[in-house]
Each structure stands twice: as structure tokens, then as C-alpha cells.
């Protein structure tokens, strides 16, 4: 058989049947996670057609997008729309027999944090879910990707989706990341190089020594964020680190079954001579901490740089977009990005609210104070991450620095709850979208790593985190 990529192998092992001669297949999907805002119309569709869920055990329902993150948590939802969505969500869980983590469940959290935490994401699986950041699951050697509500309904009714094979792209990462440069910075560097549509139509495999050396959590960060370059699926070959992460998790196999699973997982990889439709290589030793200046995730610069001149964009539409972005962001070309003051600092989201992210941020907050006039909040990715951060003493470092320590949820990543910026407010954010209006109408978002957000919070302006790191302080 011809050499195949890991992506091809995962698709091949999940094809129920071909639907035509041009590569359209009926693809079996092993698992989904549902949230309260992209699922209601799917359940309504099932109800209207009198259909059942094919395999209720393969789904998990978690409230994460609309819930408040106030320190004292109750089941009450602040607005009527959110309350209705959560009520309907619970009703659907009950009526269709799907497991449900409600807001007070100790396993609650952002779906992409919770599913791995519970051991629900295993190598070799195909996982599709109603959230674009479902590429997260690629970090485990599963094929993860996002779907819309119609496809959720199709999945629930059939355990399959109609699927057309993607082109394949390999992003090979070599070298050694300098001090202060995180997986977030590496993936932001890839995105600014290939553009916000650079991976549109592709499934991406990350490879190389940087990936091998990266923690599973770091791999989740790059798998999630590369969707901002348009990637429609991510895979990373599983290794011992993935096994170590999974072993002992609530839903991971145990005993002899674990041994059998582990053997089959460790051989999952692209064949050495597999060909990819596109290859990208990045040497990470020259990557610096990155910050976005515009309203698309590819509009980013190193923290040491100045705001670029839109006139240097090649295409007229790109130039117009850059001018519009600068106008929206209230910035001018030539301005050092480090001179830009912030009003708000947000550490949270499926991209960067795992325990490692909170440790990175706490390291910067330790012994410092949030600058006057800045409001900073930390929203852990799950209730379990929150408990761990408290046990490790991180929460105390946050609160002593004047940072608000919150309950878990998506919160200010898309601001569907009551954590919303006011028009014109400028936020240093560990999220992965800086779109117009994303964090509130007129809100200005600068994407960066959690440690960079912490650095901005304590100085009151966008700051090179390297100047605050212990090793750099002479």
C-alpha cells in the first residue's frame, strides 16, 4: 500500500462507505461534546422529525459558553436567554439520555478542557463537535474538527457525518524556543506567516522535535489555535507523553485493556515517506513573544516591533483591511507596540486556561501588583483546573496581586456571558480571536500568551514578558 499520512489513516479507519466517486464519504465519528449554544436547533430538529440519538453514550453535554464566572457559583443564569438555553440543554440531556455536566458539577468546564481531562479523547479516534476549537483533540493523535449545528443534528441521528477528504499540510517545528516563548507564540508565528486562510481546506499535522518536546497541554494550544489559519482538522502522532497524560483518567481504559490500547496507539503515525500536499517548516529559535495589533489573528508582530504600515500590504483589499483594523484598534503605524496601554487583562479560554498556563501567569504575578487602572481576571478552563490551581497556591498569587479569581467557563473569549468589555476598552487576552466586537461591541483585543497578559497587567501596557522573567532580571 502507498505511504499514508496519519490523517489518511484516521479517515480510512472511519469510512462507513463511499458516497460518490469524488471522495465524499460517510465518516463514523467516535465522540462529540455538546454546548448549550450551538446544539439547541439540532435537538429541535431531532424532535421535529421524531428521531432518536444513535448512540447517546458517545456524547457529553457541558455548559460553558453562557454561564457567569462569578466566584460564588449558583445555577442561576443572569439573563433570560442564557437561562432558556441552559434549561433546554438540560431537558435535551434528560430526554435523549446523554450525560450532562451542569454548572455545579465538579467536572464542569470548557468542553475542550473537560473532554481530555476526563480521558474521553484517545488516540485513533475521530471527534467532531459544534465548536471550531474542536481541533484541540488532534493533540492526542485523534482527528478533531469543528462542525455546525446541522452536522451536529446529522451526527446525533446517525453517529456519522458526510465528509470530504481534505488536503494535508505538515507543519514541522525545529530548534529550541527561547526563554519566554510559549507554544502560543509559536503557533501565532505560523499563522502570521501563512495568513488567516493559509491552512483553509487542509488537515494539519504538527511534527518535529519542538512538538516532541512539548507537553500535551502545549500541543493542545497549537492544535486549537491553528484553526485561526483555517485548518479544518489537526493530528499529532501520539507518544509516551500522551499515554502518560491519559493513564488513570476516569474514562481511559484500565488493566489489560489499557495495555492493548497503548500498543495500538503508539504505532499511529504518518508513514516516513508519506507525502503532504503542503509542507511548512519553522525554526523556532528566532521566534519572539507575539502580540496582535489588528482584528485578524494573522495581524501580529513581535512584542519588540512597531505597528506596521498598511501601505506595505501587497493587495489593495489587504491594505484596506489593515487600515480598517488600525482605525478600529485606535492605533497608528510606527507606534512601538510596547507603548500601548491596556484597560483589561484576561487569562482564560480553551486555548490558554489549563494548569500550565495558570502557572506561567502566576510566575509573573508573584510578588507584583496589577497596575492602577487595569482590571485583571483569571477564568480557569475547568472546575478541576480551578481546584488544582488553588491546591498549588496559584490562586493566592493571583488574588494577592489584585487579580480576580473566577469560576470556569468560556467567559471573555467570546463574551456570551456577563464578562463583556465596554466600547473602546483595550484588553490583553490569552484567547485566540481578536475579531471586531468579539469581546464586546467596540472592544479592542490583543492576543498573546498568558504570561504576556500577566506582564501587561502588572505594567499597565503591552510588555515584553522576558523583561520580567526571573532569569532575565539582573
Amino acid at each position: 500500500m502507498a505511504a499514508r499520512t496519519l490523517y489518511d489513516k484516521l479517515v480510512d479507519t472511519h469510512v462507513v462507505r463511499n458516497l460518490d466517486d469524488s471522495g465524499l464519504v460517510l465518516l463514523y465519528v467516535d465522540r462529540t461534546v455538546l454546548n448549550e449554544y450551538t446544539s439547541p436547533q439540532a435537538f429541535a430538529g431531532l424532535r421535529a422529525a421524531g428521531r432518536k440519538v444513535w448512540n447517546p453514550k458517545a456524547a457529553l453535554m457541558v455548559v460553558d459558553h453562557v454561564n457567569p464566572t462569578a466566584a460564588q457559583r449558583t445555577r442561576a443564569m443572569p439573563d433570560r436567554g442564557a437561562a432558556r438555553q441552559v434549561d433546554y440543554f438540560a431537558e435535551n440531556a434528560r430526554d435523549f439520555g446523554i450525560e450532562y455536566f451542569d454548572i455545579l458539577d465538579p467536572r464542569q468546564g470548557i468542553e475542550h478542557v473537560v473532554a481530555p481531562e476526563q480521558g474521553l479523547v484517545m488516540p485513533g479516534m475521530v471527534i467532531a463537535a459544534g465548536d471550531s476549537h474542536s481541533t484541540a483533540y488532534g493533540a492526542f493523535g485523534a482527528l478533531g474538527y469543528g462542525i455546525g449545528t446541522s452536522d451536529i443534528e446529522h451526527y446525533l441521528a446517525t453517529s456519522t457525518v458526510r465528509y470530504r477528504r481534505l488536503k494535508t499540510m505538515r507543519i514541522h517545528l525545529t530548534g529550541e524556543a527561547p526563554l519566554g516563548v510559549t507554544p502560543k507564540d509559536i503557533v501565532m508565528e505560523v499563522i502570521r506567516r501563512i495568513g488567516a486562510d493559509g491552512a483553509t481546506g487542509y488537515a494539519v499535522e504538527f511534527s518535529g522535535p519542538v512538538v516532541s518536546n512539548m507537553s500535551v497541554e502545549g500541543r493542545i494550544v497549537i492544535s486549537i489555535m491553528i484553526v485561526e489559519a483555517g485548518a479544518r482538522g489537526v493530528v499529532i502522532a501520539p507518544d509516551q507523553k500522551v499515554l502518560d497524560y491519559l493513564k488513570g483518567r476516569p474514562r481511559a481504559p484500565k488493566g489489560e485493556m489499557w495495555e492493548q490500547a497503548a500498543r495500538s496507539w503508539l504505532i499511529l503515525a504518518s508513514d516516513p515517506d508519506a507525502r503532504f500536499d503542503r509542507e511548512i517548516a519553522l525554526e523556532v529559535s528566532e521566534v519572539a513573544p507575539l502580540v496582535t495589533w489588528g482584528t485578524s489573528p494573522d495581524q501580529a508582530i513581535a512584542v519588540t516591533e512597531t505597528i506596521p504600515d498598511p501601505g506595505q500590504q501587497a493587495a489593495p483589499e489587504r491594505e484596506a483591511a489593515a487600515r480598517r483594523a488600525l482605525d478600529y484598534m485606535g492605533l497608528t503605524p510606527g507606534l512601538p507596540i510596547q507603548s500601548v496601554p491596556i484597560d483589561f487583562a484576561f487569562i482564560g479560554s480553551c486555548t490558554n486556561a489549563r494548569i500550565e498556563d495558570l502557572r506561567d501567569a502566576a510566575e509573573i504575578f508573584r510578588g507584583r501588583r496589577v497596575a492602577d487602572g487595569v482590571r485583571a481576571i483569571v477564568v480557569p478552563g475547568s472546575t478541576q483546573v480551578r481546584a488544582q490551581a488553588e491546591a498549588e497556591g496559584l490562586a493566592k498569587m493571583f488574588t494577592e496581586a489584585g487579580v480576580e479569581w473566577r469560576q470556569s467557563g468560556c467567559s471573555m473569549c467570546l463574551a456570551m456571558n456577563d464578562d463583556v468589555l465596554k466600547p473602546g476598552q483595550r484588553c490583553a487576552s490569552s484567547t485566540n480571536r481578536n475579531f471586531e466586537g468579539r469581546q464586546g461591541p467596540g472592544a479592542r483585543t490583543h492576543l498573546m500568551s498568558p504570561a504576556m497578559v500577566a506582564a501587561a497587567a502588572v505594567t499597565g501596557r503591552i510588555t515584553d514578558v522576558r523583561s520580567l522573567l526571573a532569569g532575565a532580571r539582573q
Partner: protein
Amino acid sequence: MIPFGQVTGVAAPMMAPNVDTDVIMPKMFLKGVDRSGLGEGAFNLLRFSGGKPNADFILNREGYRDANFLVVGPNFGCGSSREHAVWGLQQLGIRALIGTSFAGIFNDNCANNGLLTISLDADVVAELARVVADSSRNDVTIDLAAQSVRFDRGRRSIGFDIEPDRKEAFLTGRDFIASTLVFADDIRAFEARHRAENPWIV
């Protein structure tokens, strides 16, 4: 899904790159459990400011208020998976989008709802956008059966590609779930084999 045959109407140029689903359907309109009210939400922060129509926005301008098609820039529909963006465009009266590339989830969402997306070369899209920017020449006819876009008062016609299966679905307005359930036995057989090979998957 809504069937699509031949549709004639007005096309509005909207050539900015990377128009994301947050812009197409802002979060304030996502608190429903059905599809109602999304026409108001579509491009809401661009269409209105301070409760009044924003005169600069293309869909508020004379000749484009009842547009049926959008001629769009690259990577239209990037970002969040929210299908509300597609439902809102449809409720606004949009039947097709013509551009160079569409973001993946958004493109599938369009296909699942009968909102036609047509991908053409960049120079062709730019030419079409130039022509329809003249509001006296912004009539366009999309004939799916013939796979053609006629514009400039019928003087010009360009062909487009579409996968046969997708074309068939658009023409008939097919229920994809019903078509898949025809293969229920195949799914069950697959499932039995797959679970035997991977017994840790429930």
C-alpha cells in the same frame, strides 16, 4: 434545506478579506433556542449604529438593500462554528455567496442549509465586484443546473464548479439525515467491527 434552482437578483460587493462569523452574526443574537430573529442580527454592528442604519454599509445603500447575493473577499466566514451566521444571511434574503475561498465549517453550514457558495478565480471575482459596484449593472442570475453566473445585464456569463453530490442536494433540497439513514445497516456493521477492534471506545 431550501432548494436552489435559478435565482436572479441584486449582488452586493463586500470584498474585505477574512469576514468572520462574529461580524456576520454578533453574539447578542445567539441566545435563542430556535432560528428566529437572526435576520436582524446579520451584520448588525455594521448595518446599524446607535439604532440607526449606517448609511455607508453596502446593504443600506440605494440599489443594494434587497441584495440576494454577496460578492465577497477571501476566507469569508472564518472563525466560530456558529450556524446562526448562515441562518441570518438567509433571513436577510441572501441566497448565494460568490468569492475565492470560504472557511471550512461555514462552507459546510451553507451547504447544509441551501445557501450556495461559488468559488471562482480571484481576477474573476474582482471583475464581478467591479461590475456590480455600479448599481445600474448589479443584476446577476445564478443558474445552478447550467452552473453559470450571468451578469452585466446578461452580456457576460461565467461557469463554476460544484461537486455533483452537492449540486444534486441543492437542486432537490434533500434531507441529508434521511439519505444517511438509508445506510443504517452499514453504520451498524461498521460499528460492530470498529468496537471489536477498539474495545475501549464506547
